[in-house]
Each structure stands twice: as structure tokens, then as C-alpha cells.
């Protein structure tokens, strides 16, 4: 009886010791010497692995920062500028000041503005719907509303509005990682300057058709009339392929373009209500919201 006990204890201890020795040598052999700063930087990153920086994930970003020791080209769009400053401090570098961005959905082709012309009955995927047909409204550029952007968002910042059928970006949650921009098969979502107090003005349409066909499918399409281009005092608006585009770097948010748009394709967000000419602005707002 004692012998068995003794044997068991000895043999188990022996196995333990041998395994420990093997483990030690294996650990020696396969040891990876890593810059400790990678861990420090990685700690400061959000850890969502969204890929918004253009690299494979947060760890890859941290490695890249440590490898290049240069923050001028690397930026984590998700981190606040304070976090980036902390990273810069940890690395002994200077962080470039960046203005916060936000994803903007440039389509107002809601179910009211762009009525349904066919019934789509296939896989719930914008990418597939885009390859199959021009979509239920018939607009070849407009939002399909099957939520590829919602699926791609790792921060729960986009949802599909159940009334309009269009994606809505939350000012609060969007970190401008750009995942939805890549996910959208029609390049409707764009990263724009977030703007002071979340104030932004943009053309909420990406339709490149001529006025007639564009208007046929959607009441709030940009018809490429060019009125806003003439109105803009800062030359921030360009007209390419029957489509107006407001350059957010040049735009000073003067709000002159919005009232002249005949279809209400230009949207402004979070501005106080206009004082002068209340009647006209109200009618424009109606079409935009309808």
C-alpha cells in the first residue's frame, strides 16, 4: 500500500519535473523579443480592431507606430485626440492635430421621396442587390437600405430608420473608422468633417443621372442645375456628372446654398432655425423631411 503511494508520488513528480524542463527549453527556443512599447501603445488604443487606420487591427497599428516611430502618417480615427496625444507622449513623438470626422449618408431617397417600383426578394445584402438590379426605387445610385453599413459598423453607430428605410448615423457613437464607407456598394457614405456643434451642410444625393431621369425616380435628387454652385461665395461646390458636391474643407457653413436648391437635395444638420423668410425655408424643410 505504502509502496503504491510512494510510487505514484515519485512518478508524478518526475513527470512534472521533466515537463518543466521541456517547457523551459521550448520557451527559450521560441521566445519572441518584442518591443515593450508595442504593449504600451496597444493599451492606449480602443481595441475594436475596426481597421479604420488601414491596418489589420489595433495590434498591427501599435506595431506600425513602434516600427516607424512616426505619427504623421498614422492616425487612429477612433481614438480621441487626447488618446493620440497620450500615444505620442508614450513614444516621445508629436501628434498631429486632426479635426474629428463623421460618416454622412448622402441619400434622402426614402420610401416617400423615392417610391417603390419593384419588389426585391433576394438575399438581404446591399452588395447583392446592387449587382442584381438598380434597387426598388429604380435609382441606380441611391441607398438600397439592406443594411450592409449597419452590419459593418463595430460601434453600433448606424441603424436603419424603420420609416424612411435609410441608414441613420449617430453623432454620438460614430468614430469615423470608415468601415461603412467601404461596405456601401454605392459609395453613398462619406467621411466628412464633423463640424462645430455637429453642424454640417452636404448634398444628400449621389445620383449622376441627368435631371429628368433622376427626378423621375426620386423627388429629392440632385438634378445638376448648378444653382448652388453659383450661389456659393467660397467656391466650395463643384458640379461633376450632373451632381453637385460640397467640399467640406472649403465650406464655411454660410447656409446660402441650401435655400436655392430646387429639389431640397442639400441638407444641413443641427443649425438653429432660419430667421428671415420663414415661409420659404419652411417649405424647403418640408420637402427635405418628407
Amino acid at each position, binding site marked *: 500500500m505504502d509502496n503504491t503511494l510512494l510510487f505514484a508520488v515519485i512518478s508524478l513528480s518526475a513527470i512534472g519535473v521533466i515537463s518543466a524542463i521541456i517547457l523551459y527549453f521550448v520557451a527559450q527556443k521560441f521566445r519572441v523579443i518584442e518591443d515593450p512599447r508595442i504593449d504600451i501603445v496597444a493599451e492606449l488604443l480602443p481595441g475594436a480592431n475596426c481597421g479604420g487606420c488601414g491596418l489589420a487591427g489595433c495590434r498591427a497599428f501599435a506595431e506600425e507606430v513602434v516600427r516607424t516611430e512616426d505619427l504623421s502618417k498614422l492616425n487612429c480615427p477612433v481614438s480621441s485626440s487626447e488618446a493620440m496625444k497620450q500615444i505620442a507622449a508614450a513614444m516621445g513623438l508629436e501628434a498631429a492635430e486632426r479635426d474629428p470626422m463623421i460618416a454622412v449618408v448622402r441619400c434622402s431617397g426614402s420610401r416617400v421621396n423615392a417610391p417603390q417600383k*419593384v419588389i426585391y426578394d433576394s438575399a438581404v445584402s446591399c452588395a447583392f442587390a446592387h449587382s442584381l438590379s438598380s434597387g426598388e426605387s429604380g435609382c441606380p445610385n441611391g441607398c438600397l437600405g439592406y443594411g450592409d453599413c449597419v452590419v459593418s459598423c463595430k460601434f453600433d453607430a448606424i441603424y436603419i430608420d424603420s420609416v424612411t428605410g435609410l441608414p441613420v448615423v449617430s453623432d454620438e457613437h460614430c468614430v469615423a473608422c470608415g468601415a461603412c464607407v467601404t461596405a456601401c456598394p454605392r459609395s453613398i457614405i462619406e467621411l466628412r468633417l464633423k463640424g462645430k456643434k455637429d453642424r454640417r451642410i452636404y448634398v444628400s444625393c449621389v445620383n449622376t443621372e441627368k435631371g429628368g431621369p433622376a427626378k423621375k425616380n426620386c423627388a429629392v435628387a440632385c438634378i445638376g442645375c448648378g444653382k448652388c454652385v453659383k450661389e456659393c461665395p467660397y467656391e466650395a461646390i463643384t458640379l461633376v456628372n450632373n451632381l453637385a458636391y460640397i467640399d467640406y474643407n472649403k465650406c464655411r457653413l454660410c447656409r446660402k446654398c441650401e435655400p436655392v436648391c430646387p429639389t431640397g437635395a442639400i441638407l444641413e444638420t443641427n443649425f438653429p432655425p432660419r430667421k428671415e423668410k420663414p415661409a420659404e425655408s419652411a417649405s424647403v424643410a418640408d420637402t427635405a423631411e418628407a
Partner: protein
Amino acid sequence: MSLLTVSGSPHVHGHQNVKSIMYGVVVAMIPAIFVSVYFFGLDAARVIFISVAACLFFVWIIQKYLLKGPLTINDGSALVTGVLLAFNVPSNLPVWMIVVGALVSIGIAKMSFGGLGKNPFNPALIGRVFLLISFPVQMTSWPVPKALFAPGVTDAVTGPTTLGILKEGLNAGKSVQELMGSSGFPGYMNDMIGAQGGSVGEISAIALLLGAAYMYFRKIITWHIPVAYTGSAFVFSGILWLVDPARFIDPVMHMLAGGMILGVFFMATDMVSSPMSPRGQLVFGVGAGLLTILIRVWGAYPEGVSFAILIMNAFTPLINRSFKPKRFGEVPAKS
């Protein structure tokens, strides 16, 4: 005219859907239900009814109050699980045990993995094995079969199954021939029609084969798993029998006794938990056949079908990964 529909091709669909498959399986089990009611009386009907009702109830309550998702209670899958669970227990099992079995089958083995199509193991078998391990006495005391309305026998008589008789006798040192010749041993013919002790649904080989044939012609099952399963079990047990006919049961008896036919045609072929490619299904069948005989001959339990199938279920993802279908135009790797 209403709006035109736009969808990807194909624009037509075959006739089978999940419901028709599930109800097809239920139809295939009807002959076995009749046989068991004939031999075990209304007790068998009681077990089946309670098991089905409990399974449907648990699906309903879980989907409605736990998952709060859509109700899929009428897709027939819970019905199949219910009948199969009933088929795998003795006809004198207390009601509460059947309900516990149903809860394990539906709640643990199926819904906790995500419901229909997501379960790695056959839910009815999980329920049965749970009951067998938890309540070994009740689960292994089988009522003696008697033809319906046959006079003179009281309901309470219980006895061992064919395999039980053999296992116990062999452990006691008797030879197979001796045991098969003894009185009270059902014999080939009785095993065929169902006059043997056993679980509700497993007793009659003929009724089960009838159902299996129906499923085969309705294209609910393919031949791969049953053929590989029975083939490997037959060959393996045949080899053992040739080595020593006194110690090992002959292959034909292996086929007919116990839950072999039920397991092979109704549970190993369960689509969800069996491999997908034909080659994988053959591997699955061969493995299950070998395991069944191994457990029956050397295991502690007289019956090995449920354990064999569950073990192979665990291998299914691996088999799916390693045994791909033959690709069209596959170029053999040039060395």
C-alpha cells in the same frame, strides 16, 4: 397589375421544404408506432403522446419567453424529436421522467445551440442518454411484450431485452448457443416482428425497415449512412463471430436485436448532426458501426447504438472538413 418582383435566379423551387421532410420522417415512424402499441398496449401510446406534447411545449415556451423570436413550433422538428425520444425509452417510464427527457432533448441539446439545424448532437439521443445515466433502473426494466388483448398476462411483468439476456448470460459464463436456445429468448423471428423486450420504438425490425424504405423513396435519407453503418457493424461482428461463435453473437442477431435498425435509419441519418458529403457520410457510418459493436461486446451496457452515434456526431465537423465532395474537374496534384 401589382409591382414586379425582382429576385436572383432560380425563380422556381423544388417541392421539398423543411416541413415536408420532418413530417415525412413522422410518417415513416407510424408503422413502428402501431407495432409498439400492439405489443406494449396503451402504455406505448401514452409515452409517445407525453413525449411529443412535452417537446412541443418546451419549444414553444423557450421560443416565446426566452428567445422571444419567431415561433417555429409547426415545422415538425420538435415532433420528430418527441417521437424519437419516446421510441428510445421503455413503455413503463414514469411521466415525469419523460418530461425531464424532453426538457434535456429540446432545452439543452437543441435550443441552447440555436434551435433547428444548429445542434451538434441528435437531441433525442441526448435525452435518452441523459435518462439512461440518471435513471438506470427505470430505463432498463422493459415490460414484456404481449400481443394486444392477449389474456392472462398482467401489465407489471418486466424482463430484459434480447441483448440484455445475452450480455448477462455471457458475463455469467454461458455460451451464446446455450443462451439462444434457452426459453424466453425471443429468437430471430420475434426480433423481426417485434415480440421482444425493449424500448417503445426499437422492437420491430420490419416496421422500421418499412418506414426506412418510405424515407428512401421520398428522398429524405440517402443510402450512404445506413449501408456503411450496417455494413461495418455486420462485417466487424461477423469477424468476431467467426473467431469464436460461443463468445460472440452472430451478425444477424446484432442487426435485429436492440436499437440497431432504429438507430441506423432514424437517428444516424439525422441530417443536422451527420456529415454532409457522401464520402463523409460513409466514414460516419463505418465509424458508428464499429463503435456500436465495440460497446455492445466489451462495454458495460448491452446496447451501444446511442453512444456510438453520439460519439460520431462529435466527429461530424471534423469529417465535414476532411471529406469534401469530389470536385468537378479536379486536377490531381502533379508530383
